[in-house]
């Protein structure tokens, strides 16, 4: 890991002028960023692995040795172009990257064009979007490239004017000389270009000189979004790529035994092709509606998937059987809080159904999809097509959300398979129902916790987290292989356990602290869902913390003040307690709840108020659920250095809705080997009638010159705060989540046809 003992501004960073017609600057990925660690008192806990090296550090380390270069180009029109090797899925990444370029180049934000890089295998592991890592990994390299570009433009102008470069200034895309001469970047772009590739160094701007970074900026694609111009994958017009959908089995990962009426389907209006795929039958047609028509008609004999006999009950029974014993020794003088928490399967489906465009030819293939690990997608698609990876071009498109789902390339692989078998380009979309039933899930898990305390101290905190296995097969495996030898947690741990150790750490001085994961190998289609393990682990921990506080005669905030290890967490806790008027009188069946969390180098506190009064809980709604309502959410976030406070606030607001959904209303229900949920009126993600009317985000003053990760940071503390508030409002300890899990609040759609027909009565409900 890298020690950083001198501020970013005094270091010089390395880059390259690359031979090109106009100025082009390339840099390597930076080495990892370190940050100070402080120990605290009470009964100190040894640093857990996540505090020494967290997942983000591991990602940075894996990226550092790669020789793949990322390049900023200055055009003759004076714009700066940069193809960022990351995915934009709504988290505001392209806006923040554009701000970095604009800042170091002294160029207006509107003159920076950011696109998403195609899959570039030479980047190795520096083309993975996840773990809230993009700001941390891109911050120095992108600024370096822009800083070198600015420096080169200045040197070019200085040579042209026979002036000393130190006497030139840059502002708004113009270089100004000591005698008032000016030249725009566009005018200098060709002269500034290099004939051969040479290495150069530059310094970055001091944080005190920032005029864009650190200021609130609107999304660079905001106007395109509200005018309908922003293009998602299915909006692209690729010649010959026709709508394609897949008829799927009534069990997870079932396969096709036979298609019994292929000719009848091919004769249907608009249908052009039918092809058997690994897990379904693809139908290509002139319109998606005609694909859906065909799915109503097609007669397939299915082979059940390996989970055909599984249901929520059978999975929970297997988890309970696999719960390990607690091992922390219990002192004779200590009392303990013991609790066991259950978390149902959850879906990480975004609003945009999984989709991809594929044009597979005899010797090559071209793919378009929103992909967070496009290199692995390219490799696996090439293997499936029996083509060399170099023959497969993978374009990364902008996504309508991801929440972890786009770490995988299920739809792209399917589209490639369909296109190859049909011999035609396909525009393949999963249906909404497919997305819930066959798509990736956050696995069901159980968290067993015991905390022992005596004489005003917490002596032990043990949390055994047992989960259906999470699929990390999207490419983190290579990173672990490359860096495993350097990790303090090597030897005997699975990849999931390593990720768990690198992401989970208790922020409290609770003496002997053990947090560990074990998994059961059921082959559900699982994956990382926004914030991965933290929402469940932290929810369980914070509920136990409130129990400890109560047993030890303390208020939840006062208790946390005594035991938190980290100054930044104390600061956000105190700010939240004050700004949220912690401890104010609340009417019966309503309560405040508070939780803190630290991850991705950020620190956060969330204070909520919840209304569990009968009138609120029994609010009527058609085709939905109401129940308790979070009426207020206050987020206090320390993101190290907040690159874009407006974007940071947006991520916190989104994380709040996710946390509320996970705590109160949303989960899958598995029966007969498949989730029952099929639409957003079944999977109860937070809706307008359950969203808090009072949402506030306080962005703390910067505590660092390095940005923390933020995209996932709000989920865990919100889920925990809502659970704690619910406990206080109802005088109970909730142990099964979501709170409404025990009641199936909808009538399941039929399992076949796998995609229901669309209604026809839309004109009955105009307004």
């Amino acid at each position: 890991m890298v020690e950083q003992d001198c501020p970013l501004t005094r270091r010089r960073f390395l880059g390259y002028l690359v031979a090109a017609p106009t100025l082009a600057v390339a840099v390597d990925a930076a080495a990892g960023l370190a940050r100070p660690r402080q120990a605290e008192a009470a009964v100190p806990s040894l640093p857990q692995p996540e505090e020494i090296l967290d997942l983000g550090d591991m990602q940075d380390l894996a990226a550092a040795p790669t020789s793949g270069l990322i390049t900023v180009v200055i055009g003759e029109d004076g714009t700066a172009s940069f193809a960022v090797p990351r995915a934009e899925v709504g988290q505001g990444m392209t806006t923040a990257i554009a701000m970095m370029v604009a800042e170091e180049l002294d160029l207006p934000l509107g003159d920076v064009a950011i696109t998403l890089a195609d899959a570039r295998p030479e980047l190795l592991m520096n083309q993975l979007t996840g773990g809230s890592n993009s700001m941390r990994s891109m911050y120095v390299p992108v600024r370096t490239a822009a800083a070198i570009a600015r420096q080169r433009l200045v040197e070019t102008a200085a040579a042209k004017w026979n002036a000393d470069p130190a006497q030139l200034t840059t502002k708004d895309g113009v270089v100004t000389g000591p005698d008032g001469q000016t030249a725009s970047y566009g005018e200098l772009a060709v002269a500034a270009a290099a004939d051969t590739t040479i290495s150069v160094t530059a310094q970055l701007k001091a944080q005190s000189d920032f005029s864009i970074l650190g200021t609130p900026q609107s999304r660079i694609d905001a106007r395109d979004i509200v005018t309908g111009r922003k293009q998602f994958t299915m909006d692209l017009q690729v010649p010959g790529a026709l709508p394609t959908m897949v008829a799927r089995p009534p069990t997870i990962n079932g396969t096709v035994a036979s298609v019994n009426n292929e000719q009848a389907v091919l004769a249907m209006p608009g249908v052009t092709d039918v092809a058997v795929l690994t897990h379904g039958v693809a139908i290509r047609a002139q319109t998606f509606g005609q694909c859906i028509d065909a799915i109503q008609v097609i007669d397939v004999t299915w082979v059940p998937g390996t989970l055909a006999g599984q249901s929520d009950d059978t999975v929970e029974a297997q988890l309970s059987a696999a719960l390990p014993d607690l091992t922390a020794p219990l002192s004779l003088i200590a009392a303990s809080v013991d609790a066991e928490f259950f978390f149902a399967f959850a879906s990480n489906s975004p609003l945009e159904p999984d989709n991809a465009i594929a044009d597979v030819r005899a010797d090559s293939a071209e793919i378009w999809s929103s992909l967070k690990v496009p290199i692995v997608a390219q490799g696996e698609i090439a293997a499936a097509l029996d083509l060399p990876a170099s023959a497969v071009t993978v374009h990364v498109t902008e996504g309508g959300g991801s929440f972890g789902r786009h770490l995988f390339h299920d739809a792209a692989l399917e589209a490639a398979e369909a296109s190859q078998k049909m011999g035609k380009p396909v525009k393949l979309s999963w249906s909404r129902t497919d997305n819930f039933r066959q798509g990736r899930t956050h696995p069901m898990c159980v968290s067993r916790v015991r905390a022992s305390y005596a004489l005003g101290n917490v002596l032990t905190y043990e949390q055994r987290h047992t989960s259906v296995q999470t699929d990390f097969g999207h490419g983190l495996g290579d990173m672990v292989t490359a860096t495993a030898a350097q990790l303090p947690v090597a030897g005997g741990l699975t990849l999931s356990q390593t990720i768990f150790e690198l992401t989970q750490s208790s922020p409290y001085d609770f003496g002997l602290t053990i947090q560990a994961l074990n998994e059961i190998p059921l082959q559900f289609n699982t994956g990382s869902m926004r914030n991965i393990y933290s929402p469940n682990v932290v929810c369980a921990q914070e509920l136990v913390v409130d129990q400890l506080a109560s047993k030890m005669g303390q208020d939840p905030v006062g208790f946390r003040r005594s035991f938190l290890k980290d100054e930044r967490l104390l600061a956000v806790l105190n700010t939240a307690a004050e700004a949220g008027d912690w401890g104010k009188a609340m009417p019966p069946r309503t309560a405040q709840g508070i939780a803190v969390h630290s991850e991705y180098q950020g620190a956060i506190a969330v204070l909520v108020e919840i209304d569990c009064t009968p009138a609120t809980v029994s609010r009527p709604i058609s085709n939905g659920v109401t129940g308790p309502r979070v009426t207020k959410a206050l987020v206090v976030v320390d993101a190290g250095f907040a690159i874009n406070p407006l974007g940071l606030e947006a991520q916190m607001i989104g994380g709040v809705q996710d946390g509320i959904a996970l705590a109160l209303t949303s989960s899958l229900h598995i029966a007969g080997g498949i989730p029952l949920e099929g639409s957003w009126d079944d999977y109860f993600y937070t809706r307008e009638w359950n969203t808090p009317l009072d949402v506030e985000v306080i962005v703390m003053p910067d505590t660092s010159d390095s940005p923390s990760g933020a995209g996932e940071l709000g989920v865990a503390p919100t889920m925990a705060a809502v659970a704690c508030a619910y406990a206080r409002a109802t005088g109970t300890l909730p142990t099964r989540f979501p709170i409404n899990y025990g009641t199936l609040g909808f009538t399941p759609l039929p399992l076949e046809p796998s995609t229901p027909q669309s209604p026809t009565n839309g004109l009955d409900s105009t307004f």
Partner: protein
Amino acid sequence: MPTHTFILNGEQVSVNAEDNVRLLWVLRDILGVTGPKYGCALDVCKACTCHINGLAFNPCSVQVSDIKPTDEITTIEGLPATAGADLHPMQQAWLDYDVAQCGYCQPGQVMAAVALVNQVQAEGREISDADLDGLRNICRCGTYSRIREAIRAGAQRM
């Protein structure tokens, strides 16, 4: 294959399509108008919300044969023209509050918001929390609080 005629964003269009094809696919797959999005085609998520004769509706659930030649269909692309400006006040409010995150639901959100405000103002009222609670458009990025602020601001200028 039958021909269907209607007014789309102020211009008369004619398309060849089977009677039962839902209007959403006629717009997206045949006419290449991709502002309205496919989120579910079950009349649940409301991502495809457009206007028919000034009222919000979901084209995923209307067969093209149920659209009359005199029906005026407005998609997000045609919204500014209804206000005679580069942007409808609701779209401008969306920019002022930096509402969008991934943006997938937002064309539908804006269209639904405009219709809701029109309805509420026709009743001589101001937008209330209860009105906003009744919006069924889902936003999986969870930007509801900014949606609500923008709707209130947009309403002031409508």
